[in-house]
Structure formats: C-alpha cells, structure tokens
C-alpha cells in the first residue's frame, strides 16, 4: 500500500501536458471511490489523524503537505531526427506528423490516410515483422475522438520497438493486410470503441455478443453497464426490457 497515513481524498488531475486533449472526467468528484452508490459517502469526511486540512478537498492545493515531493516526471523529447523516423518520413511523404520519445519508447504520429503505406514500409523495409499490440484510446471531447495505437517490434533492428499513433474519428484504415494478427486486435478495438476499420475482412464484435448495444470502453459508456434485455430478447421486451421505466435501477444490469 502506498497510503500508510491517511491522506486527503484525491484532487482533480492537473491538465495533461502531453496529450492535447483535456482529460474528461477521470476524477471529477473529490471521491476516490468509484461512483457506486453504496460506500462512496465516506470520502468527503475529514480524515482522522488530521495531517491534512479538513476542508473539502476539492481545492487544488492541500495535497502538497502530505505528499512527498513528486519526482520530476519524464518529459517527452522530440524524436523526428531519429534515422528510423526520418527514413519513414522520406519513404512515405506526409505520413509522420510528429514523433517523440518518452520513457525510452519512440512514438510516431501517423496520418490516417498514410497508415497502411507506412506500416507496409516499416514491415517490408525496416523489418518490423511483429505487430505486438494494437488498441484504441477514447479522448471524449477531442476531435478526432480516437487514437489508434500500434506497437511494432523488429527482430532485425536489435529488438527495437516503435509505437504508431493515429488520430481517427470513427473510421480507420485496417492493417490486416500487413499483419494478419491485426485481425482480432482490430475486432477488439471495434467492439470496445466502435472504431471502424475500413477494409477489415471480418469486422464483427469479438468479446461482447453480436447483439450488444454500445461500445463499452468509450468514456460515455456507464460503468454500471447498460440494460441489455432488449438487445437479447427484443420480442420478449418490446418496450426495452429489463427494469421498468420508473425504476431507479433502470440503467443497471441486474
């Protein structure tokens, strides 16, 4: 445990410096607990061994005396000068929008329309034969809304890894033509975020069922879940199913 002494409840996060988007509602309430109805009431009460001020902790300052000085966080540095990035930018003009290095990892922002060409180049010419991971991130209030992240690995370049980052609205070009393993990863990203991968050979939901409504990992999807009775048995629940319309639990899956 990190908290050996009582600390004041969480303060809202400072604005992220790296990502341009604002952080949407990661910690909007002063409560550290999740917004589950039962036990969240405890948080705003003053802590007992009052090192911290007892005032409602929504103010930005009071964490300072309790918390030790934060170690200076790593800062992203520009990496567009790296030979790999420079080669990529030269081979696929207009592909690399920005490149930076952060905690030892290189990230390149790629324009969506050049994604497949860039991936093809990286795989064929630079030896990034192994697609480690592909996923998406939802920046709710940003335009375009989603980031698709790809992590590539090259065996021939001394175990080098490179992250590609593509900002897309809801449609992203598929890379299944480049790496076959992207198939399920893209299906998962589609299932969880609703990012459509154009040209994907088999774009179906993978973890949730085929009749599921909504995309669970979007930030506006309620953590309690949604009422899914109607989705499963539309004939049995013509009005939407599940709890009745006045029921306070209406949005909660039982």
């Amino acid at each position, binding site marked *: 445990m990190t908290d050996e002494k009582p600390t004041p409840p969480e303060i809202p996060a400072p604005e992220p410096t790296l990502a341009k988007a604002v952080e949407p509602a990661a910690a909007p309430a002063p409560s550290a607990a999740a917004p589950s109805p039962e036990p969240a009431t405890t948080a705003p009460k003053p802590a007992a061994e009052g090192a911290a001020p007892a005032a409602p902790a929504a103010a930005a300052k009071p964490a300072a005396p309790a918390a030790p000085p934060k170690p200076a966080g790593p800062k*992203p540095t520009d990496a567009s000068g790296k030979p790999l990035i420079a080669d990529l930018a030269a081979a696929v003009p207009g592909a690399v929008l920005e490149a930076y290095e952060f905690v030892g990892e290189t990230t390149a922002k790629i324009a969506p329309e050049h994604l497949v060409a860039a991936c093809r180049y990286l795989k064929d010419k630079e030896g990034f034969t192994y697609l480690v991971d592909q996923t998406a991130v939802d920046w709710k209030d940003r335009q375009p809304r989603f980031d698709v992240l790809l992590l590539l690995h090259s065996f021939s370049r001394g175990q080098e890894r490179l992250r590609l980052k593509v900002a897309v609205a809801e449609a992203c070009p598929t890379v299944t033509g480049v790496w076959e393993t992207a198939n399920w990863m893209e299906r998962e990203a589609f299932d969880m975020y609703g990012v459509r991968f154009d040209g994907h050979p088999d774009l179906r939901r993978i973890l949730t069922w085929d009749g599921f409504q909504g995309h669970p990992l979007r930030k506006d999807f309620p953590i309690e879940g949604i009422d899914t009775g109607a989705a499963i048995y539309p004939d049995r629940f013509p009005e939407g199913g599940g709890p009745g319309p006045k029921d306070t639990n209406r949005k909660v899956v039982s």
Partner: protein
Amino acid sequence: MTEPTPGTVAQFPPLAGPPLLGLHEMELNFGPQHPSTHGVLRLVLQVDGERIVSARPDVGYLHRGTEKLFETETFPMVIPHTDRMDYVAASTNNHAYCLVVEKLLGVEVPKRAQYIRVLLDEMQRISSHVLWLATAAIDLGAITPFFYTFRDREVILDLFEEYCGARLTLNCMRIGGLPVDLTPGWLEKVRAFTEPFEKCIDEYEDLLTENRIWKERTVGIAVLDEKRCIEWGVTGPVLRAAGKAWDIRRALPYECYPELDFDIPVGKNADTYDRYLVRVAEIRQSRRIVLQCLDWLEKNPGTEIRGKVPRVIKPPAGEAYACVEAPKGELGFHLVASGGNKPYRLHVRPPSFINLQALPEMAQGHLVGDLVAVIGTIDIVLGEVDR
C-alpha cells in the same frame, strides 16, 4: 459477412457468414461447454467426417470488462484485478502491470525486491507449465500426469500462500516493490521443494516423452512455423518451439534477469511435441533460476522491498508499454496516463488472446481428435482471452 452497424440491433447475425457446407461436411459445435476447451472457448467446426475443414473460434463468454474496470480504480487498486486475467499465473500479471507504472513513474525497484519478484515469477511459471502439462495430457487421454503435477503445483501454491496469503489470486506485488517481506524460513522451504523437483519432472517425462502413443498424438500436429508465428504475433513457447530463440527475459530484459544464468530452449519442428518439450525444458530452466535467486537472497539478507514511491501514485501523462515473459507468451500492459490517479486507459496485450488467433490455421486439416491437442498446445486461459 454481415456488417454490424453500431447502435442498431436486429437479431443475432450469423456467426461468420452463411456456412457453406459441402456434400460431405457437417457443422460441429465444439464448446463452450466441452470438457477440453479449457473453459468457455467455443469453436464452430466444419468437418468432413472427422477431418476439420475450418474452425472458427468464438470467444467472449468470460468477458468481464476488466479494462473498463481499470479506468475506475486508482493505480494500486488495479493490481487485484490483474490477478484475475491469467488466473493460473497471477504473479506475472501483477509484475507486468507494476512494471508499466514504474516505467512511467521512473521508480527504481530495490535489488532484493527484484530478486523476490523474479523468484515468484519463476515459481509461477513452473506451476503454470505444470498445469498446462496436466491439462494437455488429460486432453489426450492420459489422466495420471494430472494428479502427479497437481501434487507438485500444490506445494508451490502453499509457498505462495505462506508468502502473500493467497494461493491463486496472489496480489503479490506493489508498485515500486512488494507488499511484504519474506517470512523467516520461507527460502529454506522453497529450496526444499525446488532441489528434489528435478526428479518429479523426470517422472512426468517417463510417463509421456518417449511414449509412442503420446508421440503419435503430438508429432506433426498443429505445425506453425516461425514465419507464420510472427505473422500471427504468436509468442512464448509456441514461438520458441518453432526455432526462434526469442524470450523477453533475454530480448528485452527486465528486473534482474541479465544477472541470472539460464538457457532458452528451442524446438525444431514447430509441432505439438516440440512445444511440449520446450515447456518441460522451461520448467527445468525455471528451476535453475529459482535456485539462483535463492542463493542470492540467502547471501544478501535485507529488508528493503519497496522503492521510493510517492504516497499518491500519479504518473505523468503519457503512454508506456511494459511486457514480461508470461508462461503463455508476451504479456504487455499498454498504459495511457493523463496525469490523474487513475489509468486513463490500460490495455492488456494478452498472450492467450493473440495466440488463439492462430488456432484455425493450426487446426485445419487435422482430425477432431487432434483438435484437443491443438487447443491444448496453445495453452490458453480463457480468463485472459476474454478479460
């Protein structure tokens, strides 16, 4: 192929287009309640007699929304949830998650904690591989290895229980180090188990390795060569059985692995038998690592198990990816932090999920009887596949 449109629901669309059955073919539903699908995997098979024409995996029966859950928890609170993904190798899950947060925080883990972490990981690897051996053997009809392996796995679980208080869902690591120090006498108990363990491995091998039935059932089954492995992103023992000596413990070393002496077993034929041999050899190598960790810990007593971690863990905004060599392959955590005390997005790169993708290719052309060997050879845990 039905193109699903988000937001609209009609009925169940067919699984993957209309089944185009030939004259001699039938569709066979394999799972999700089949005894040898290791949980709730469902395969829709198109079989000609017993020969598999195509296999379509259908996953998600165990989906629990873990990644959504991660986003609502503070960083330390995420750890118990990671236990429940690959629930037969909880320690490596904890480890990978802690590594990614430490990477963003820039925390240095004390040497002693590193060695204990590696010790736990390798014991976990032994127990996971041994469990794989048990289930793979029972899939192919040999019931007895199951009991012998469980006898030995039980000892490891007891040792885990003595260290951290739980047997399966360990919750045995913390960001920056470990929750508790070792109990006195624990190292001797580990040694008392590990040193004679070689004999137990020999027993498993006597039952299976040379057995002609075992060989007939596994040699040449589910071949996936190195090139295809990398194309499918398949890692872990399956990749090594294909002849590629790639192990994250060596390729992208973490913790104190560079200081430890161990070999990376590789196969030649990329078939089920080689994967079996690789896993058994890895049990032997893990045993070696455990003994080395014990030596180090006995020579270097200390109490420092936790690095300098701020009381409230708030990694700076940015992305990081950290991976460990889990018993199943590369287990990675992809963390996107926004500067808050909760992960903005924490994606898991589950080895089981990615490796399972190659199953149709491995199963094609084999018989239904081989399918259980194919499923077994990938070593999937459905808790990790579906998360």
